[in-house]
């Protein structure tokens, strides 16, 4: 006999800790714990046996892996959070005592944590990071449109809008956008970057109000992480594409509302001097390294700060500070990452990663003009990512490359009803006839279809064809594009009418009931029903007179019987299944039936709508 095992010393009792004990172990507040969990990506686990994990108690609790918590205990951010707690105490004491200078110096030295190591830890490779930026992009684009308030400083919003613009710029340049979908929630975009599909949702441009039941702290913590993550991802994407990151911003244009156009992409300039330097430091983004050697230089940089870019890290020890000084004034955006990025540009991997030139430049031959009621950021992004040129009216913002009277315009994206204009000069008329006026959906549908669609159904003032999701639905779902054609509905109708005319009244209801039964079978048993339906359809399409149809029905009735028989058999065979298999089977069947029901309801709705339409059009 081995040694006696004590309870709670091994197994689930040891592998899991409850949340409260985790907080106790980490000696931080619950809020800090949450923040840490968000930043580190630690989430609760579901133990197989809750009772065993909770040492015999079955009270509802959340469990974490004990190892995860041990991992958190060594986190530098946790240390910083503790420091921040001490700092907050000191600051409040200083303020309470009215020691302003102390408070000021404390405030200047407030502890700040960095998330770089967490990014590296959570995403060991770049692909991991890229795969996970969906949520980040959603959040960034949401916060870019939020109004500022005491909880959400304007600087945060500015940073978010900058990041989202940078992402759009990259997508446009690399032509990696694949799909777009105008939904009621916003616009879904899907891009393919380095073989990873990235889907993100951008809300329509309306002011969003934060509901009261939303914890802003949580969102801001996520945003903190996402900003850092996106920064590093974009840096990598930009430098791999040979671009300077961050892209320089033209403040004048930006203030004019140029949006994405305010940023300019710059190729990385490689100068010999820089490449000769054996520097491993790839950091300097601004190209304006302020040496920390003496105070004078800092002062100087502060005085010249108006022309430069903010965000200079003074503490950063940089050996090449002096060398940079020369070009500091006129090229503020040279990257110092020369050697490394240059070499990395040549590698096969990065070449693969580079966007393919063969991406469909769908709109390349066209020039668009946006009418002022359409949303410029959306369509500028869409058209430019597919190679089109686009202009807009000056009331929509600065930076339009051409005016509305430009002759090269081929399409006008317009979203208002047609108004007859009487005071039209012949020149305007000519221009109008030369251009094609389409509704915005045309652009998105073209992108999703992968080719240029006919403009006719999308013309101004027309009722638009339905806009379908390019992402598809589950297999076997109802497909509105194929659907049950109008032809079939018509046939069915005529069928019924024929019966009423030719046959006596007794038969036709029977017929219909048969058909109804068939339909019911089709709805209930997905696999057999569909086959049966298909057979029926084929028979109908083949050209049917009532007698043949009768036979058909007879046949199908027989078929029904056989299917019933087989159903019985399989029902009996179900007896021989084990309990577990039976449950699994029931579950799967339930799912299938639900899907079939969904499909059939959609089909019946469609039929009804078609019928109504026909009725309306007939008289």
């Amino acid at each position: 006999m081995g040694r006696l095992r004590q309870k709670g010393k091994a197994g689930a009792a040891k592998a899991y800790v409850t949340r409260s004990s985790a907080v106790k172990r980490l000696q931080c507040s619950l809020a800090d714990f949450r923040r840490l969990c968000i930043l580190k990506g630690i989430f609760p686990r579901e133990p197989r046996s809750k009772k065993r994990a909770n040492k015999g108690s079955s009270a509802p609790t959340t469990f974490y892996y004990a190892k995860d918590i041990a991992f958190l205990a060594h986190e530098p951010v946790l240390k910083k959070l503790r420091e921040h707690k001490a700092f907050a105490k000191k600051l409040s004491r200083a303020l309470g005592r009215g020691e302003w200078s102390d408070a000021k110096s404390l405030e200047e030295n407030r502890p700040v944590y960095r998330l770089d190591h967490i990014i590296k830890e959570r995403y060991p490779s770049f692909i991991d990071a890229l795969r996970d930026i969906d949520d980040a992009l959603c959040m960034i684009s949401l916060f870019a449109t939020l109004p500022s308030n005491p909880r959400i400083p304007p600087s945060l919003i500015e940073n978010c809008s900058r990041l989202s613009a940078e992402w759009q710029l990259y997508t446009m340049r690399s032509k990696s956008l694949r799909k777009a979908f105008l939904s009621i929630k916003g616009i879904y975009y899907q891009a393919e970057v380095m073989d990873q599909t990235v889907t993100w949702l951008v809300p329509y441009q309306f002011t969003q109000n934060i509901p009261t039941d939303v914890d802003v702290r949580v969102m801001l913590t996520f945003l903190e992480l996402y900003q850092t993550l996106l920064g590093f991802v974009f840096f990598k994407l930009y430098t791999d594409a040979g671009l300077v990151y961050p892209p320089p911003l033209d403040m004048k244009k930006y203030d004019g509302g140029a949006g994405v156009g305010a940023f300019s992409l710059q190729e990385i300039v490689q100068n010999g001097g820089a490449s000769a330097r054996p520097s491993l430091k790839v950091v300097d983004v601004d190209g304006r390294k302020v040496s920390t050697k003496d105070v004078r230089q800092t002062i100087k940089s502060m005085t010249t700060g108006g022309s430069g870019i903010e965000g200079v890290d003074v503490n950063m020890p940089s050996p090449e500070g002096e060398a940079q000084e020369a070009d500091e004034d006129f090229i503020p955006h040279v990257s110092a990452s020369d050697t490394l990025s240059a070499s990395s540009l040549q590698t096969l991997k990065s070449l693969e990663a580079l966007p393919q030139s063969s991406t469909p430049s769908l709109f390349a031959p066209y020039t668009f003009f946006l009418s002022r009621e359409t949303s410029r950021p959306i369509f500028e992004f869409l058209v430019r990512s597919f190679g089109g040129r686009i202009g807009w009216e000056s009331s929509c913002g600065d930076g339009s490359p051409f005016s509305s009277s430009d002759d090269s315009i081929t399409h006008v994206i317009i979203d208002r009803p047609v108004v007859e204009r009487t005071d039209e000069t012949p020149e305007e008329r000519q221009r109008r006839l030369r251009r094609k006026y389409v509704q915005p959906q045309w652009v998105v549908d073209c992108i999703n279809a992968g080719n240029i669609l006919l403009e006719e159904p999308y013309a101004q003032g027309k009722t638009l064809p339905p806009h379908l999701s390019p992402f598809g639905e589950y297999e076997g779902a109802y497909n509105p594009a194929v659907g049950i054609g109008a032809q079939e509905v018509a046939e069915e109708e005529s069928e019924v009418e024929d019966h009423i005319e030719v046959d006596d009244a007794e038969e036709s209801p029977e017929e219909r009931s048969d058909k109804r039964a068939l339909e019911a079978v089709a709805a209930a048993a997905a696999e057999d029903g569909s086959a049966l339906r298909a057979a029926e359809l084929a028979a109908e399409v083949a050209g049917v007179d009532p007698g043949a149809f009768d036979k058909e029905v007879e046949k199908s009735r027989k078929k029904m019987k056989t299917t019933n028989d087989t159903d019985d058999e399989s029902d009996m065979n179900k007896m021989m299944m084990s309990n577990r298999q039976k449950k699994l089977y029931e579950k799967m069947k339930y799912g299938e039936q639900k899907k079939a029901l969904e499909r059939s309801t959609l089909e019946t709705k469609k039929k009804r709508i078609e019928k109504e339409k026909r009725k309306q059009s007939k008289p």
Partner: protein
Amino acid sequence: MTATEEHRRKRKQPVKDDATDGVFHKAVDMVMHSDEEGGSIASDTDDAVDEFPGIDVHSDTDEDDSDFEDDDEADEAEEVLQSSDEDNHIFPKAKTIISDITGQPKRVYPEIEPEYDSDSSTEDAPNRVGNVPMHWYDDLPHVGYDIDGKKVLRPARGDELDKFLLTVEDLSSWTSAFDKNTQMDKPLTTEELDIIRRLHANEVPDAEYDPYEPMTEWFTGKGKEEIMPLSAAPEPKRRWIPSKWEKQKVMKIVRAIRQGRIVPSKPKATAQQQFYPIWSEASTSHAPPLPAPKPKLPTNSESYNPPEEYLPTEAERKDWESMDFEDRERDYLPQKYSALRLVPGYDRFIKERFNRQLDLYLAPRVQRVKLNIDPQSLIPKLPSPSSLRPFPIYKSLTFLHNDSLARCLSVSPDGAWVISGDDNGVVCLWEVTVGREVKRWKFSSKVGAVEWCPRTDVSYFVVGIEETIHFVIPPNLSPSVYNLTYKLLAPATLPSPPDVPSAVKWTTAPSSSWSINLPILTVQLPQTSGLPKQLVWHRRGDYIASVSSGSNLGGVWIHQVTRRHSQAPFKKIRGSVQLVLFHPLKPHFFVATQQYIRIYNLSEQLLLKTLVPGIKWISSMDVHPSGDHVIIGGYDRKLCWFDLELSDKPYKVLRYHTRAIRSLHFHPAYPLFASASDDGTIQIFHARVYNDLMTDPLIVPLKILRGHQVKDGLGALQVKWCNHHPWLLSGGADGAINMWCS
């Protein structure tokens, strides 16, 4: 004279009265008791009313007494205060009378009482309670006592409006304060006002106090210096040499500044993050954490312009709206807009983002393997029933026991006859093929079991009723068989009785009185043994075992027909015996108690095996003709198949009936078995057993036979196969015995 002045004068009047009251307090005592009266007197005596100018807003608006009083009260403090000043003017009124002596008119002043009329008494406040908390008088009508010990009545106080009016009218009201002692407002004296002013100006409140008095030097100053020092120690160096350590510290900082390690007036920590190629270095060896599951991609119904069939109907919309957020399948309702410009902002956007984040950091994640299989593939592939014919599929005939349940039935070994017994004690003999009743016996109580003797050379059956087992010879036998049977059951010479007298009595009907209607042989079971619910023949047809329901111990008996001897095989048995069975080939005996099956070797008197089916209450049992397999049915709907070679645990447990299983039977020749249940159905199974030990028995469900009505929760009660045909007979609670043919 201004209105205020006038008013004041008007007010003064009652004070005068008060004063006079004070003087002649005895005389006007009555008046003082009631304020109202005093007031009315005051107004009556007040001739100032006449003097009022025509326009007097104040008096116009509130002329009535109560109001007057209120004013009165409000003014009282002032009046009291002023009274001291006005005392000078108030003299007791002189009366002019004709002198008795001189005959000249003369003025006569009222007598001055030295005690009461002295100045001091009128000057002081009438209330003499002293410095006591005035809230003692809160609930009383008076506020204290005057010098006589009379009550000083509480002056009436006006409401807020009066107070306000007073502040408007009376210029001195803002310099008056409430006097607790008299419960009235009292104007402050100039000294008091001065104190207030000083306090307000942060000055010393005492006007006399001079903070800047010249210092009076007592111990210092000219001529008062101490000559001797307190300590003789020389002055330390640190008093006049700068600190070395301080200098070093300062130098350290200076050096740091020079080297640029410390930057004075350092700009704020960089707000903007510095980015660098974080992924340029090789990643650590450990695997990346699992990526979070991505949210679902939008479907057609989320489009701003979906096909019309996606739009919800009114009922669907209402359903959706009435549901809780958590229960909704979709978090939005499909909507259709004719143009993109009409699409509004989505109001739940932030909430949905937030929910996603909650999912990311609060939801436990489980990795599930998604089964991508056809559910049909889960159903075991079994041979089709049509390839396993013959088996009974339809009901060919029904034999009815009226008003009773057909509890038991048995088929003759040649398969031509059926006997069935019901709860009324009727036993019927009828033909299998046509269902014609040939003979009917009536017994005294309900029939527990009937069983045909398996011997083919003789033909008789046994019927178990209350505490008795009857042996009955059917009619229409061939003479040879009849003779043999008769000889067997009623031999000329009885075998010798056993040495030990048994509790069971065997009695043969005397040949004279016996007819075919009566049982030829009767076995009387011991008292209180109850109804034999099961009778089982050994395959040779010599032994028959009976299980009675009544007493717990003497339930099981094994009777030997040839020796006319009965024995109880068990002295003691744990649990109540439900069923017994003979092994078809070996001298083994199966005993089913409520939860276990025990197998005994009868020749060696040994317990061989205990089977644990895991059924709560065993209802039926049958053994395969090969003797290696046993099926057991329970009231908890389960059927267990035991392979005796394999294990004590069931090889297969099936649960397909919706109610309790009542009866099971293996076909003696065909690979079939049937089960009858209280749900009124009978299930036929194909049960093939292989001779090699490697192959598992094959069980294929073949057919569900429905034909028995459920009555009082009972359905089909017993099933029996015909020996040579794949035909099935079933007795049900509805009194019908059905014949199922292939």
